[in-house]
């Protein structure tokens, strides 16, 4: 929708007024931003520079009615300021401040003709609202995108697969395991077995606070899938609380080879590896 189609003459007048008073209004706006303690993460120069860009984009949208350029700018701005800790309320705040600065300027100009002022506002308001909306939505969308990215990164980091010795992998698991994480875990485990040609995996759950029936079943599945790929899994670090829960729930852990702690687990793993060593290897003397 091209807003410029509505009341074109008034809008043009409005736009030229805003361009004429660009320096003064921009400065006033920057000052009000600082007074409101917004964008405190940024230096004065940065605030002014962004203010200039936003102002010009703002007037551009008023003039052409096309928001795409503003959307692109808002996305770009969000990408830059979000890592610096700038919050949503600050971004919405500064846009509303600009809206206010410009509205007051229009009032000053048209105050002697109330009827005309009303018509100017009719032209200004919808455009101003659309702009505020566009900027806020772009910012929030960018934040959500970054949060999703970070969640992915955290998931990746929290499930390392460590090749410790030849044919031996250690999978230290910490934090809460939900179904999705359990699935990712199993994926990493199985891919790790293939990539490192592991014969034994020590899965350490010391860092997992609670293991309920659902999680236990996921772990059992992981163990069975590992067996299909020729690898044995040794579970270590099961807390007594978790062990109690599992026994009470009657979870079938007969398929699980469980050992007290990580060290015992590794020793057990080495025993297993020696037993599984190729038949033609000469015995160590």
């Amino acid at each position, binding site marked *: 929708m091209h807003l410029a189609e509505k009341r074109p003459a008034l809008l043009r007048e409005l736009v030229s007024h805003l361009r004429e008073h660009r320096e003064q209004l921009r400065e006033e706006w920057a000052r009000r931003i600082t007074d409101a303690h917004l964008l405190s993460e940024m230096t004065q120069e940065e605030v002014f520079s962004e203010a200039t860009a936003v102002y010009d984009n703002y007037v551009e949208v008023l003039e052409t009615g096309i928001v795409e350029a503003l959307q692109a700018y808002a996305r770009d701005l969000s990408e830059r300021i979000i890592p610096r800790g700038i919050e949503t309320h600050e971004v919405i705040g500064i846009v509303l401040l600009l809206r206010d600065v410009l509205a007051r300027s229009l009032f000053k100009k048209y105050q002697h003709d109330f009827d005309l002022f009303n018509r100017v506002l009719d032209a200004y308001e919808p455009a101003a609202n659309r702009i505020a909306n566009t900027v806020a939505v772009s910012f929030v969308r960018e934040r959500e995108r970054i949060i999703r990215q970070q969640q992915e990164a955290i998931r990746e980091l929290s499930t390392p697969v460590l090749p410790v010795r030849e044919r031996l992998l250690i999978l230290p698991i910490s934090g809460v395991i939900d179904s999705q994480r359990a699935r990712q875990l*199993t*994926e990493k485990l*199985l*891919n790790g*077995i*293939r990539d490192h*040609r592991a*014969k034994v995996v020590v899965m350490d759950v010391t860092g997992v606070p609670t293991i309920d029936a659902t999680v236990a079943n996921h772990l059992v*599945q992981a163990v*069975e*899938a*590992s*067996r*299909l*790929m*020729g*690898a044995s899994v040794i579970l270590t670090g099961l807390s007594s609380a978790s062990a109690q829960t599992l026994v009470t729930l009657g979870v079938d852990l007969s398929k699980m080879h469980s050992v007290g702690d990580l060290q015992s687990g590794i020793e057990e793993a080495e025993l297993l590896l020696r037993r*599984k060593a*190729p*038949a*033609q290897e000469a015995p160590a003397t």
Partner: protein
Amino acid sequence: MPVPILKQRDYLIASVQAALSDADLTDLRDNLSNQVGRFRSRGVIIDVTVLDVIDSFATRTLRSVAHMLKLRGAETVIVGIQPDVAFAMVQLGLTLEGVGTELDLEEGLAHLDRVMKLRGANGV
């Protein structure tokens, strides 16, 4: 399309080349049974690296192959089950219980060698 079966020492190696129909699976079972008898093989490796699906029929057939061949004196090892295939199988409760499984051909041969050694030690 029949699964090619190669002889290597005392062992037979069946390399699955493409997705197997139910008929292919039963053919494989019969062929292996015949060849084990013919060559008096002591071990069989079925390489399923290529398969991206192993369903319940395939699982049941592979298990019955292993049991049949055992009755004819041969140990069976399934090799090459891929990560996502293994995952799908356990989710459906298909476990190939009672059948040896190894990562790949090399491991499969090592597995058979170990078993033969044990058999030799036990005078089987």
